[in-house]
């Protein structure tokens, strides 16, 4: 025990550093809002104090709650999220202004996004306060599984389900519309993690060897395979390509991490390629997207590639340092405020801005994976690595799609895009990561027996 104690690195709380970084991220968010006003209208917006105050209040609430209930939590995550969310709000506001200038009756999104952000923060607080120990969540493994399936099926139900832009992934609840898939993503991570923790030994060791590959027993892999197939089937049925890709990657990565057998990645990748090719052959809309990706300037793909070309033009026009907030034409790109917000950022903040945002995303993933590394329990490890990798995949798929690295699939850009479900779900993800990192970084509990008390007295440095 003594040796373990000595070997273990004692993390510091670093809440002061978090507060300092939060102030910096507020400067980014509020500064961007002011810059938008200057760029579009020539003056700092009149509501800057109220707006800045509201953002600051949200950040402060988050900080105080973390300080109270998760004092050892990672100090970098929250400021990054606040900076991204603030930047996204400013960009959405900027696009609102352009839309209203062109057409006075246009729908605006910034106010709604601020409301969603507030809801996100409330959920963030709730998760941190209610879930005091993430290991308790393991008890609800199957509940999360069923909830995820239910959420995924909801858009297919009559009355509440709606189809938008060809994808049936939305539900209408009165005035609110919601994308249940975003929340299902988190539930699915929790389900996979809980299930795999219980069965990882069986999955890794039991089973028979077939054609050089160790296959697990059906009863061990069955439920998770069924679960995955259902979610995939639902998504294919809903024509949500991005989410299908995301869920597949998630499943594969978590299986690999739990069993430590790289063979899963090989098998999975082969399956993915086969599935992707089958999808390409079977679905017209997939072919349209792949063609638009391969030959965007071919006149035959003019309709399919219009958005991606406009996005590329926007980013090229931005160049190294961008046109400046309010100085570009992001409204030329359809859905510049949601799926294509990265292109809008690229146009007005340039390669510099895009790189900064990508690095912030990279840091989020890095903090999640670091949390997974230092976490002491398997469930926490799996949840953290699952959330981290799914986040990385989502950023890769959406930014890669917008910048023509891979075919375009409709996904939200975390924290930046307009979209309530995504924002709220991502705030919940951050809360979970903070909770796990709090557990992971907390000094080892004092388990020494009373008799040894004197000899093993540990000086608490903090």
């Amino acid at each position, binding site marked *: 025990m003594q040796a373990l104690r000595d070997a273990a690195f004692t993390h510091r709380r670093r809440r002061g550093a978090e507060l300092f970084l939060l102030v910096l991220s507020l400067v980014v968010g509020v500064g961007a809002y002011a810059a938008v006003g200057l760029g579009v209208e020539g003056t700092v917006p009149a509501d800057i104090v109220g707006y800045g105050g509201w953002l600051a209040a949200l950040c402060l609430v988050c900080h105080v709650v973390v300080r109270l209930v998760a004092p050892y939590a990672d100090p970098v995550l929250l400021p990054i999220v606040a900076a991204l969310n603030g930047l996204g709000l400013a960009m959405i506001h900027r696009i609102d202004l352009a839309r209203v200038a062109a057409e006075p009756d246009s729908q605006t999104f910034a106010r709604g996004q601020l409301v969603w952000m507030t809801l996100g923060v409330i959920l963030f607080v709730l998760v941190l306060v209610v879930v005091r120990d993430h290991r308790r969540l393991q008890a609800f493994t199957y509940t999360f599984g069923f909830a995820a399936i239910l959420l995924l099926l909801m858009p297919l139900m009559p009355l509440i389900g709606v189809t938008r832009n060809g994808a049936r992934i939305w539900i209408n609840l009165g005035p609110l519309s919601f994308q249940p898939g975003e929340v299902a993503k988190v539930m699915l991570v929790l389900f996979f993690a809980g299930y795999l923790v219980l069965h990882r030994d069986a999955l890794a060791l039991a089973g028979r060897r077939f054609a050089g590959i160790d296959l697990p027993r059906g009863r061990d892999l069955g439920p998770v395979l069924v679960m995955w197939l259902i979610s995939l089937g639902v998504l294919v049925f809903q024509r949500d390509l991005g989410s299908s890709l995301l869920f597949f990657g998630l499943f594969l990565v978590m299986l690999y*991490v739990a069993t430590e057998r790289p063979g899963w990645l090989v098998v999975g990748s082969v399956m993915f390629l086969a599935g992707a090719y089958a999808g390409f052959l079977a679905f017209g809309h997939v072919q349209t997207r792949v063609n638009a990706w391969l030959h965007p300037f071919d006149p035959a793909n003019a309709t399919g590639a219009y958005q991606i070309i406009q996005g590329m033009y926007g*980013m*090229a026009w931005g160049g190294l340092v961008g046109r400046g907030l309010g100085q570009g034409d992001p409204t*030329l790109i359809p859905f510049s405020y949601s799926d294509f917000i990265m292109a809008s950022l690229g*146009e007005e903040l340039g390669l510099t801005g895009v*790189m900064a945002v990508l690095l912030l995303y990279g840091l989020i993933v890095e903090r999640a994976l670091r949390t997974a590394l230092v976490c002491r329990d*398997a469930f926490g490890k799996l949840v953290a*690595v699952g959330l981290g*990798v799914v986040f990385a995949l989502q950023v890769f798929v959406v930014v*890669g799609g917008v910048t023509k690295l891979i075919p375009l699939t409709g996904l939200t850009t975390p924290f930046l895009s307009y979209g309530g479900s995504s924002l709220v779900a991502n705030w919940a993800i951050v809360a979970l990561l903070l909770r796990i990192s709090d557990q992971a970084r907390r000094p080892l509990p004092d388990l020494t027996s009373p008799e040894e008390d004197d000899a093993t007295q540990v000086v608490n440095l903090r």
Partner: protein
Amino acid sequence: MNKPIRTMSIFCMLLFAALLLNTTYLQYVDAGSLNSRGDNKRVRDAEFSRKRGAIVAGGSSVAESVQSDDAYKYQRVYKQPRKYAPLTGYYSYIYGRSAVESSQNEILSGSDPRLFVNRVVDMLGNSQPKGGSVTLTVDPKAQTAAYDGLRALGRNVEGSVVALDPSTGKVLALVTSPTYDPNRLASHSFSDVQKAWNELTADKNRPLLDRGIQEVYPPGSTFKLVTAAAALSSGQYTPDTKVKGGASLDLPQTSTDLVNENGSNCGGDPITLTQALEVSCNVSFGDIGLRLGDDALRAQAEKFGFDQTYLNDLPGQVKSRFPESPDEPQTALSAIGQFDVAATPLQMAMVAAGIANNGTVMRPYVVDEVQAPDLSSLEKTSPEALRSNAVSSSVARDLTQMMVEVVDNGTGTTARIPGIKVAGKTGTAQSSPDRPPYAWFVSFAPADNPKVAVAVLVADAGVARDAISGSGLAAPIAKNVMEAVIGK
């Protein structure tokens, strides 16, 4: 489970590295080509509302942007629109750009990397970026002489004049007819622009076509210069060599004869090579062509620039051509510039300029200098040889002497300039029986110290068929252009 987590972190790092590399490619490496695409509305909008640089000829601007009160802030104005249209081109919101407006767009619009510092200064000073200006090589007097000369033949006459400075390759005049008014395409009233465009593109006279560089014609007898050059270069001929003359040449493998224009006799048989060129004897040059063979003719033509593109400042230059593998009668016809030989007026001007410049053909250019908005020079084009030994200098001297004879005593007397030795060659090319022949004249002057080489083509002057000849229609225009440059 830490090992797979570390593996996953490397995987995630690779994903982000791919994104960073890809955005760098998109926003830095590929940005230029994306920004120059014609359907890129945002670049077009921004450039259209910018103070675009001027296009200058002989110290005054022929295209410039003046302030306007509408959404686009600046209006492109062409001061002598029809005369300079083949050089300036048009700058249209809907239909893009042409000629120098197109090839020098980066400088004119201010997007050129060399203007980066200016853009930064403009950005810091919160003023709109401005474009640099472009100075043309054109001599306004020569341009005017060429334009007026063609214009005098009629508004819809089909033709072109190209004048070069033989020692540098500077284009001193480039005129095409029929022409158009680029102001109509640069208008901010897009419906007017559309109407003008529809009219121009539907016009059967094709006014948007730059006949100096974008269309090839049979060069007719002016091509005899190339044949003569090949003959002299072969070493088997001198200007005094006796060649076949008379009234007709029996074409091998056929039952037809090659005859002279109007079936006339060349003034004897045999005659000297000089005499043959003087009277433009088809029989002589057909026979020479047969003796030299098509390969020698093609090689000589290519030394003058045939089958190449060399004009970088104006888009759309087409290649002049000598037929691929003609049989014997076709070779004989090709030697006198008929059959499938085709050349742009610019190419024939380069033949004359190459002879004038002691056998060295210079690369033609239109942009003399590009300047930053503050008029400091960014780049001055330096002359460059396209072919340093199209003919040897002794052959060039012989050819010059023979061409002087053409103007002094032969078919080109209408190009005589008192007190100046002029070298020239006429041409009248049959294209097809149902349309009038093409009148050509290529020349340079002064013959002993050439300052200007000109090619004039008049394809359809709407005059009676027997009135069409190089000497009658084309040579007087060439004379005026040469006088304008020499200053007589």
